[in-house]
């Protein structure tokens, strides 16, 4: 069955403050959607709420992946169902090596009795690390500990490549990346494009979209998607900024949940 991810009327709060005020988005396998918008408009909250971060409470709406109710699932179940979030700020975990972590994650996905053999795993991991131009030493380093910002982002992409998800959410994957790293990350994403997989790319800047061409672009303000279009929308935002959108829609303060 082709991948089908549907978000309907999603509302979410953090510490009682409503950040998402009804998000609708539909992603089919093979599609790349970009969510753009200034800081503080709820983009990262959307990513976290979809993954099930415990700090965010979903108060209304529905999320389904291939007909299954995502909001009913625990975080790990969402991941095993095929949802992947490349995080803006990945955790550092001392004492757990990157390769032990990756193997645990792959095996969790594959299920008991169907674990990947060590040799096959190492071959896969090393192959993907090479594609991402990662130093092989990173396999044996503790998970994200002491990684630079760019190294952490590459490590997120490495996980994406190895876990073979159905829906990939990239939360500001481009922040803190120099141009070479950006190209490598984009190549990783492009290599993963397929009819079975959908992408939701959350970004502040258009520059990532120079490397990954989205099918749909959505602008987020005040916790809602206020405008949608094709790749040309991203280009206009890059050229003209967000003010024209605000003007067009009569928005004065685009942020959400941030009391002055």
């Amino acid at each position: 069955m082709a991948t089908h991810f549907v978000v309907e009327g999603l509302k979410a709060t953090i510490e009682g403050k409503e950040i998402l005020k009804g998000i609708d988005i539909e992603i089919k396998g093979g599609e790349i959607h970009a969510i753009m918008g200034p800081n503080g408009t709820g983009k990262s909250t959307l990513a976290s709420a979809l993954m099930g971060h415990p700090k965010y409470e979903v108060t209304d709406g529905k999320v389904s992946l291939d007909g299954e109710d995502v909001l009913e699932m625990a975080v790990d179940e969402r991941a095993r169902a095929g949802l992947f979030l490349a995080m803006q700020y990945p955790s550092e975990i001392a004492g757990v090596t990157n390769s032990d972590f990756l193997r645990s994650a792959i095996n969790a996905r594959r299920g008991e009795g169907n674990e990947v053999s060590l040799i096959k795993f190492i071959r896969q991991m090393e192959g993907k690390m090479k594609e991402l131009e990662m130093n092989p030493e990173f396999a044996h380093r503790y998970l994200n500990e002491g990684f630079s910002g760019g190294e952490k982002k590459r490590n997120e992409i490495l996980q994406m490549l190895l876990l073979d998800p159905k829906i990939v959410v990239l939360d500001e994957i481009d922040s803190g990346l120099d141009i070479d790293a950006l190209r490598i990350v984009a190549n990783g994403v492009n290599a993963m494009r397929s009819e079975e997989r959908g992408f939701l790319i959350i970004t502040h800047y258009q520059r990532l979209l120079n490397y990954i061409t989205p099918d749909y672009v959505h602008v987020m303000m005040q916790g809602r998607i206020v405008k949608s279009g094709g790749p040309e929308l991203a280009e206009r935002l890059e050229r003209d900024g967000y003010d024209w959108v605000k003007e067009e829609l009569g928005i004065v303060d685009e942020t959400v949940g941030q009391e002055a």
Partner: protein
Amino acid sequence: MTTQTVLPVEPDTLQSISVSNGEPAWLTESRVNALRLAAELDLPKLEKTKIDRWDLSNFGTIRTERPALTQQLPEGIASFVDLKEDSNLIVQHNSTAVYTTLSAELAAKGVIFTDLETAVREHEDLVKSYLHTLVKPEENRLTALHAALWNGGVFLYVPKNVEVDIPLQSIFLIDDATASFAPHVLIVAEANSRVTYVDNYISGQYDGKVVHNGAAEVFVKAGAKVQFASVHNLNEQTTDLINRRSVVDNDASIEWIVGEMNAGDAVSETLSVLQGNGSLSDAKVIAVGSGSQKLNYTTKAVHFGKSSDSQMITRAVMREQATAIINGITKIEKGATKANGEQTEKVLMLSPKARGDANPILLIDEDDVKAGHAASVGQVNQEQIYYLMSRGISREQAERLIIYGFLAPVVSDIPLEQLQQQLQGLVERKLGQ
């Protein structure tokens, strides 16, 4: 206020038992004097642990005669030993050594490895000059009681320039709650020798309470190198009290690897006296507490020697209602110039009712030194759990990874693979996984 101490045995009785066991007069006298001291001395004062409220009355019944070595391994210890032709092993069962073996090769080099009671008879002068000189009976009631009542034990002597490649092992097993269980470990590593010693304290099932009141004294002579690994895995009914101490001469080193895996209350001290110039001490302790355990673990280094160096790491995981007081004490005496002492104590609490207290203490009387400490007490980080779960890893498995990750800096540094695996297994069991 000194409370009236009820002695576990009368001095006259202790004297006649010692004599009838054929112990030399100095030892009989040492035991009886220590017992008299026990009646007068107070319990040790511990940081934040009220040991005076503990039930420390069950020292067991002192054995009246000394049975011969049976050379039979008691049941239940098979998983701890891997007996080969060249094994070096001592097994103490309750109050008595039952099995000792030393490879012919090491014996030929002059290595002595036998139970301490035998050593008293066969190597009297050697034992006499070291016994109770590091853990002294006059310190407190518990050290006095230990000196009065010790039994079985280990004597390891490594002559000058002898390097022993394979670890020497001992096992202390208690499975009788009425037995007196107080092994004493005495190790002398002569100049430029090298040896690794590993011991396990284990218990079978029994009703009734037991106090294990033990001691280890390690003498590391100039240029010698001793690795001392100890895993305590005593059951819930057993209170474990142990002083592990070493004195380290010029350019000598001691490495402590300690696994505190008991199920009952415990107090331990692991001390290195860095007497010599250029002496080194490295102490690694991992501890897991569960149930309603009360634990007090101290690592300590006292620097006298110039350019002496001490490293101490303790990592403790506390679950359920366990309480741990973790003390790290670095003491640098006047004159110990260029000394360096580093210590880290970290406690990870897995439940809201678990308690942990990490106390780094630096006592420095010399200006020209370096010393550092780090301590932390915390819960499992929920962001980390979320991150791992977001990759499909279950909550249980995520917690497990984080706990092992927490212990990894100590466990992965353990130089003996078998011990590393054993500790890993014990940690798993203690964590109920």
